[in-house]
């Protein structure tokens, strides 16, 4: 009797190709995560030091804070609203815990924002958690649940950090405007290298903020009928353009904010002289 073989589940192979190597990539796949690891770690170390180091210094004029050199305020310390802020830039909202660095009141927002950013997640999951270190390179963990459980479930709060960062971003923009104003018996137009350092900082921060995936979602990503919301669609198109370069904005704004802080510190303690002119 004629029989015919049909493909069935029992027929189907169940074993993967027995290849033991963790990966067979021959390119330098480790360069990318390594750079991420070095730069991010350097930023975290520098940022922690900068956030705690708020002692009073005596270089470059009257006693003042490390992180302030009139009219420049380090972006790490902005908005400065705790005890210990220089009087010119003190928003004066909190007057407790005198020993606490003013930076610590505010840094949680930008840090939380960056930590939950979709791009940064990609970067640090790869570089720190090796999950995976690079594409088609096996991760070392035996179990993986991704972002389905606490604490990584909290990544879903990204949009709240975004809302908070909009406010901080606004203050940074304000700071870069005041970096062009010198107050001494009235207001004077001031222009110095530091003014531009802070201006560039603001531009980079806003480029990063507005290209955020949550922003893209809020503008029009969440709707299905672009044609019925032409204005939102227009915004979405613009945000999408920024979003395309989000990674670059993330890196540039990260590096620049640290450099801006460093520049202000060096000017503040008199290590370097800020070239400026007061009109």
């Amino acid at each position, binding site marked *: 009797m004629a029989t015919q073989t049909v493909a069935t589940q029992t*027929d189907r*192979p169940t*074993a993967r*190709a*027995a290849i033991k190597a963790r990966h067979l990539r021959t390119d330098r796949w480790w360069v990318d995560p390594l750079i991420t690891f070095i730069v991010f770690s350097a930023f975290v170390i520098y940022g922690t030091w900068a956030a705690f180091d708020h002692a009073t210094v005596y270089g470059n004029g009257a006693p003042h804070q490390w992180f302030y050199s009139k009219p420049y305020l380090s972006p790490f310390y902005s908005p400065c609203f705790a005890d210990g802020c220089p009087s010119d830039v003190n928003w004066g909202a909190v007057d407790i815990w005198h020993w606490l660095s003013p930076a610590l009141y505010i840094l949680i927002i930008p840090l939380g924002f960056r930590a939950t950013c979709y791009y940064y997640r990609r970067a640090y999951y790869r570089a720190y958690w090796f999950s995976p270190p690079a594409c088609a390179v096996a991760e070392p963990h035996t179990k993986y649940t991704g972002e389905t459980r606490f604490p990584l479930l909290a990544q879903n709060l990204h949009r709240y950090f975004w809302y908070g960062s909009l406010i901080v971003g606004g203050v940074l923009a304000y700071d870069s405007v005041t970096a062009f104003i010198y107050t001494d018996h009235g207001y004077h137009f001031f222009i110095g290298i530091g003014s531009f350092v802070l201006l560039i900082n603001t531009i980079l921060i806003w480029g990063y903020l507005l290209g955020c995936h949550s922003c893209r979602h809020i503008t029009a990503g969440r709707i*299905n009928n672009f044609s019925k919301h032409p204005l939102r669609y227009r915004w979405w198109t613009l945000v999408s353009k920024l979003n395309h370069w989000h990674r670059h904005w993330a890196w540039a704004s990260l590096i620049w904010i640290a450099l801006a802080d460093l520049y202000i510190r060096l000017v503040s303690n008199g290590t370097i002289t800020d070239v400026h002119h007061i009109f």
Partner: protein
Amino acid sequence: MSARDLNLRVWRGDGSGGDFVNYTVPVEEGEVVLDAIHRLQATQASDLAVRWNCKAGKCGSCSAEINGKPGLMCMTRLSSFEPGETITVTPMRTFPVVRDLVTDVTFNFEKARQVPAFAPPSDNKGGKFRMAQVDVERSQEFRKCIECFLCQNTCHVIRDHEENKPAFAGPRFFIRHAELDMHPLDTVDRQPMVQEDHGLGFCNITKCCTDVCPEHIKITDNAIIPMKERVVDRKYDPLVFLGSKIGLFKSTTRQQVGPAGGLGPSPIKHPAPPTPVAVPEPVKRAAAAKRTAAKQAAPAKKTTAAKKATPVRKAAAKKTAAKAASATRRRSTR
């Protein structure tokens, strides 16, 4: 045109084991990896199993891993390697291997079956759906998918963790969900399903799917992240949640589906148990007749028909199994 010798290292074997075999194959300028594999098959290893079809990067058949990087063999130029470099070709690692470079990608088709099809509204007046170009464009990107399953293969969620396969559909199906969820005319609520049943939360947006996609679909940026954001709206954002309760945001009018969606019929239809290996012709005909009868009968009768047929099927199965076993014995003693 210059011809040269290419050193190829190809994984040969099947589910029971295998190893790398080295070959030297003459190749010409302008050729791709698939050309070299074909020449190898034609001249030295006629039993080499390789799946291909279009040789134009459009059928998605020739997915493999070349020097450890998942890619289409027909789209990987030999000129992208150093002259003299040995090129290693292996099958995709995430799926069971049939033989040599051919894998069994059934996993993907099973997941595909679970995604509910496009469901336009029933009141389609005039018989035409009208959509503006801007609304079409978004999902058009996802329709470029050639189902090469390279993204599925590269995704570490299942590549490194076989145990996640039941709970995770993979990037190819996230774009399918996104395509339909973003469709203005669709009436099915896909968000609970993509999160709860298809494991969107497993994805940690490390973007390897996007990196390997030969169609350059921005899987992560345009499908996964937007879907994650939509799920946040529904599940994790207290403001949106409250807003929809007081009517500030419209809560969805789409029909929920799936075990997670709760309401409505589950779109996840698990395939029936497999038919026995070798099916003799008469039994096959009987089974077909039975299926037709069952289809025509009312649902209540269907169960009775099925029950009645059970002894027959069991007997047939036994017979077939015995036959298959003896066939295997014959093969192995040969």
